[in-house]
């Protein structure tokens, strides 16, 4: 038996903060602790740090610094974008479109707008890879359609939407376009001009930045009603004292991700190939979910016949492999993944999903160990289910 080791393969859930990032952040928690809104030298120092961070991010987004709003993370960015534009354009109409494969920060926000605020929400169907057809999307846009949100890279299945193509269509119709780029940031292009998006959400902890900080890009001129009201921070679009250290950390983490992008991606590609081939070759009744090529380099997702992810994850955890199912569930209530159901998988197989996502420091030996443990766990769970049925 191979000796037990700890292999973390859940980098899509979160990443450790890069020590280089922590170093940049530290001064803003101690000597440079000022409030960016203050007039005095402490305030100025903090303001300078935040505005420098804004410029760094704006450069990567290919946008103006004033188009960046700092938030507490991906969920807040998504909420602010959807509610903000939904309400901001209410005079133009109340029809919104999204997809059934969004992160719940997007999906639940649309559902709430439909339930409590009288919005009409269309969930644009997806194909077997979890991707929408831009032509069909356009067919669903009508007079009162004001806003569309489509996920960039999917958190559960890794598939990447061709945002540019979608944006071209929406531009003609005058519909505002948001994307949840939380999973894409750090690996995919965030150039808002090239992508053609009007709003874009990111979260620092997905790319080796700290937790609790994110950003929303909001194109100049897009009407955005604030959700969190209070002071006039962020040009009145998001009240609350700025998280200076977090913002500095996010900018540094994103800068490093851009700088090291080609090496990181090459590394992910080699290991992902090893992982996917290893698992699919060793196990029968195992399938890759999401698009085979148009997907996040670090992300592999599978379904297994005759397996439920709750039990699979339990077995993997005890074997030292930290992974995730479709979406995190700790309550023992195995509901099939909505994303997989929307893609046409049956409920039976949709409960047997597994996501393995790599990090920049993942090694070949980690992958080898994980393949072995996944194969072992899948077989164990299958045997157990057979014995108990």
């Amino acid at each position, binding site marked *: 038996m191979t000796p037990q080791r700890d292999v973390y393969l859940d980098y899509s859930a979160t990443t450790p903060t890069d020590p280089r990032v922590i170093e940049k952040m530290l001064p803003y928690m101690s000597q440079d602790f000022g409030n960016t809104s203050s007039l005095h030298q402490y305030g100025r120092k903090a303001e300078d740090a935040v505005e420098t961070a804004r410029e760094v991010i704006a450069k990567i987004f290919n946008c103006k610094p004033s188009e960046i709003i700092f938030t507490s993370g991906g969920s807040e960015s998504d909420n602010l974008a959807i509610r903000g534009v939904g309400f901001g354009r209410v005079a133009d109409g109340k029809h919104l479109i999204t997809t059934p494969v969004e992160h719940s920060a997007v999906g639940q926000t649309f559902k709430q707008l439909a339930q409590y605020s009288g919005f009409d929400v269309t969930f644009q169907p997806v194909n077997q890879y979890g991707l929408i057809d831009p032509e069909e999307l356009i067919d669903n846009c009508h007079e009162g359609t004001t806003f569309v949100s489509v996920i960039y890279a999917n958190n559960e299945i890794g598939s990447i939407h061709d945002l540019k193509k979608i944006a071209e269509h929406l531009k003609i119709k005058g519909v505002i376009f948001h994307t949840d780029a939380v999973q894409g940031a750090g690996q995919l292009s965030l150039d808002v001009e090239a992508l053609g998006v009007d709003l874009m959400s990111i979260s620092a902890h997905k790319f080796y930045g700290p937790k609790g900080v994110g950003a929303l890009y909001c194109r100049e001129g897009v009407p955005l009603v604030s959700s969190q009201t209070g002071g006039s921070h962020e040009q009145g679009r998001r009240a609350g004292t700025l998280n200076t250290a977090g913002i500095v950390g996010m900018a540094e983490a994103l800068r490093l991700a851009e700088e090291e992008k080609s090496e990181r991606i090459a590394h992910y590609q080699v290991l992902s190939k090893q992982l996917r081939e290893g698992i699919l070759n060793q196990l029968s009744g195992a399938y890759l979910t999401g698009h085979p090529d148009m997907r996040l380099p670090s992300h592999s997702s599978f379904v297994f016949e005759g397996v*439920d992810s*709750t*039990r699979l994850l*339990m*077995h993997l*955890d*005890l074997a030292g492999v930290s992974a995730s199912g479709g979406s995190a569930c*700790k*309550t*023992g*209530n*195995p509901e099939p993944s909505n994303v997989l159901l929307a893609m046409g998988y049956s409920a039976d197989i949709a409960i047997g999903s597994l996501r393995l996502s790599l990090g920049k420091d993942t090694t070949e030996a980690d992958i080898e160990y994980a393949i072995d443990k996944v194969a072992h766990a899948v077989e*164990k*769970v299958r*045997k*157990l289910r057979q*014995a*108990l049925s």
Partner: protein
Amino acid sequence: MTEKKRVVVAMSGGVDSSVAAALLVEQGYEVIGMMMRLWAEESVAGHGHNRCCTPEQMNDARRIADKIGIPFYVLDTKDVFRNTVVEYFIDQHRQGVTPNPCIECNRHIRFNYLFENAMALDADYLATGHYAQIMQGDDGLYQLHMGADPAKDQSYVLCVLDQYHMAHTLFPIGGIAKPEVRKLAAKFGLPTASKQDSQDLCFLGDGDYRRFLRDVAPDMMERGPIVLKTGEVLGEHIGLANYTIGQRKGLGVTYNEPLYVIATNPYRNALIVGTQSDLGDNQLVAKRMNWLNGVVPSEAFEADVKIRYKAKPTRGIIKPLADGRVHIQFDEPLRDITPGQGAVIYDGTQCIGGGIIERRSAD
């Protein structure tokens, strides 16, 4: 290098299973906490959670697991619980029998479903916070004994265990009295207050099984005659599932002495009542017998018998019948021998067998 023995401990968030888990950690086992998510009816407003595993209890158990430094998982057990324990409960009531769901839960859920899940995790043992003790005799066979705290003993509902299960089961608090368990909880820094003792009808939103049966099986609520043993009709009942053996109140009939429910006849939908002297019986027949040493006795023998969870053990002669059932003759008549409850046989503190009461008398 000796590998640590791996134990899966069933956790409920309560003091007993928490102390059991902490003791196992202290004793040097590799401990894994597990909670079963059980089925609960959702028809009662504000409920929909089994009272053995509410979200609060789940959080409590998770916090305790974090505190004592063990992994914690929730095991989905809804469907199998519904299909075994709850179905059985409804079906037995339909047959005019008052079942003991805890015995069935131990039979199908803890010592099959949970047990097999634990074994699949390469565990050496399944542990629970039951007040009962497993010992090994000189013959190498495992024995089930009452818990050291007589007031808390749960061996009655564990009479379904066999040698294989006992070889792989630990009851860490079985040898300790409840006040001691509380002290240990304090020592380990765990919550010491018992919320409630284990709930026997844990899956009911409001604990009202009559209401539950009315909802899920309205056919059981058909009105019928209340009769004496002689056949004399005294009145009308409102559905057999509303009555239990020994019940006196709420019959709504008048007679020259107090009347009690002594039996039901589901085929004629009749509720049979009688006087206090009709209530007692000195014999019963039990079915689905389990013998914990794995050997079916061939001859009659004398032993103590418990006919309910909280009943006092009573001396009786146990005569094995050809079809695997047993006939039990007591020295004195016992009140309230209730079909569906367990008849559990003891030799001193040792539980040697158990089955389900089929009927009261020998006929």
